[in-house]
């Protein structure tokens, strides 16, 4: 392909990367801590592409009449076909197009359903004290991530959860047996390594649709077996279920 095309692609990709990095959009794809790297990459591509675009613009009009003292390698149209920018580079238009046209949202119920698996408690949590902290300030419940609740709820000894209320946030995930769960996707790096965490809600779903974000305040109940996988899933008995807007940071890190 031509160098101008290549450089315009770099401008497009750098620009869209910067936009994704500077808004909350990147939180649907990568960890929050990755933002500075994305800003760096977007800025470098934007600058590289802009330099090239500005420099190549007049050359395109004179096309095959490369100036004799032109310093850039492969600048003449003749040589360009053998040694010009690699054509595989055209693929760079794909992430740009996908981001602009689909603007893919954070992974949700579809992925949580397909990738359902037994909850693996990370070693870093396993060794922490199995005693629930105090309630939130001014409330009669304790807020916690789904994974933390799952760890307490699936433990051999669940005394610490008795007579306590917890508050969980996640999206609605219908279960194969007609019930429903509240779910959250965990990522360790980017959305390619998504692992779902689900807590079965022992109550009526009502009009709630899949992927609707909800806040649940409720109490512990004994784990149930997943209908397909036969592994234990934590359960919560809701005292209240409230629809909420999706959080800016959709994944549990």
């Amino acid at each position, binding site marked *: *392909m*031509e160098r101008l*095309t*290549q*450089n*315009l692609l770099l401008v497009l990709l750098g620009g869209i990367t910067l936009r994704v990095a500077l808004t909350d959009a*990147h939180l649907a*794809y*990568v960890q929050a801590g*990755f933002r500075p790297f*994305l800003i*760096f*990459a977007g800025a*470098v*591509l934007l600058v*590289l592409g802009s*330099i*090239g675009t500005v420099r190549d613009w007049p050359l395109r009009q004179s096309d095959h009449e*490369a100036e004799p*003292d*032109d*310093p*850039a*390698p492969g600048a*003449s149209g*003749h040589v360009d*076909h*053998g*040694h010009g*920018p*690699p*054509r*595989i580079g*055209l*693929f*760079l*238009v*794909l*992430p740009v*197009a*996908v*981001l602009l*046209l*689909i603007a*893919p949202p*954070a*992974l949700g119920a*579809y*992925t949580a359903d*397909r990738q359902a*698996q037994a909850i*693996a408690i990370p070693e*870093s949590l396993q060794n922490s004290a199995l005693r629930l902290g105090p309630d939130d300030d001014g409330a009669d419940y304790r807020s916690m991530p789904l994974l933390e609740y799952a760890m307490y709820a699936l433990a051999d000894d669940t005394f610490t959860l008795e007579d306590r209320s917890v508050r969980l946030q996640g999206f609605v995930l219908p279960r194969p047996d007609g019930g429903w769960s509240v779910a959250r996707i965990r990522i*360790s*790096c*980017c*959305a*390619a*390594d998504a*692992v779902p965490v689900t807590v079965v809600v022992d109550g009526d779903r009502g009009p709630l649709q899949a992927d609707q974000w909800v806040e649940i305040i409720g109490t512990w109940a004994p784990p149930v077996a997943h209908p397909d996988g036969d592994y234990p899933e934590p359960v919560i008995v809701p005292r209240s279920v409230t629809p909420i807007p999706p959080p800016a940071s959709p994944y549990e890190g």
Partner: protein
Amino acid sequence: MHSAPEPVLRDDVDATAGIDLPDRRITSGDLLFVLILIPIGLYFLRPDWFQGAALQAWSTVFVAVCLQALPFLVIGVLLSAAITAFVPASFFERALPARPGLAVPVAGAAGAVLPGCECASVPVAGSLIRRGVAPAAALAFLLSAPAINPIVVVATVVAFPDEPMMAVGRFIASLLVALVMGWLWAAFGQPSWLRLPQRVAGSSGAGRGTIFVTTAQHDFAHAGGFLVVGGLTAATLNVVVPRAWLDTVAESAVLSVLVMALLAVILAICSEADAFVAASLTSFSLTSRLVFLVVGPVVDVKLIALQSGTFGPRFAVRFAPATLVVAVCCALAVGWVLL
């Protein structure tokens, strides 16, 4: 200006299949225009195609893989462009021992300082050979650089916080692969298998800044294109292959090693990002994931394409299968000792 590169150009046309004809009418600019127009047209004609849950999940994973690898790729490309522009050719002749057998370990260890991914190391190895470095040494560098450089080691440590031996095992096994392949080439390699296109790059007269910028642009378009291809494959596999199927495979020790080696070849994830993918495949054994991490940077579909483009098809058809076998053996041996 036109007369000088003429024979060189013809040589290159021989070496690289499918080169454009000089008087082609359709330019890449037109192609790009059409490529952009098709999805935009579909967006208005068939908006429902863009709403399906599967497509959205696929797009999210695709974009995530691309964005995740992008900064690493940019750093690698900037660095290799800096080497191309600012490190004189004579440096390598002085730095490397004259005997290939001795140059192999030096070049292999030197791979640790090039923070690029495999896409960046192929052109660097090609230019090393053109600058008179022994092919065996350049190939050891080609294999070790994407696997043992600091960025990859740090990424592996971050991806496996509970398994520090994973990064150590990857470092040792990958270096071993590079050395074995370098010595194998020194012993059995035929110069006729290598077919290097001459670079027309008119470095004479061009400012170093210009060389740096044009090299970085070119290398990024090249490596970035292959990254996108890898992202497409990874996202498709992620969405299409059911997790239950992978879990079944993972239960067999032999099958899981073979499947992970195969996955490494067809997923073609950049070595700077593959540790995170390996970490997510939690149902597989650590050894089989080590195989994935060792095979990925040295053999995969995009590397095979890159190598036949840079060194010629006769090279790639011998080098890639041999590397695959050596990589699996090295990873198994190191995994058996360490993990």
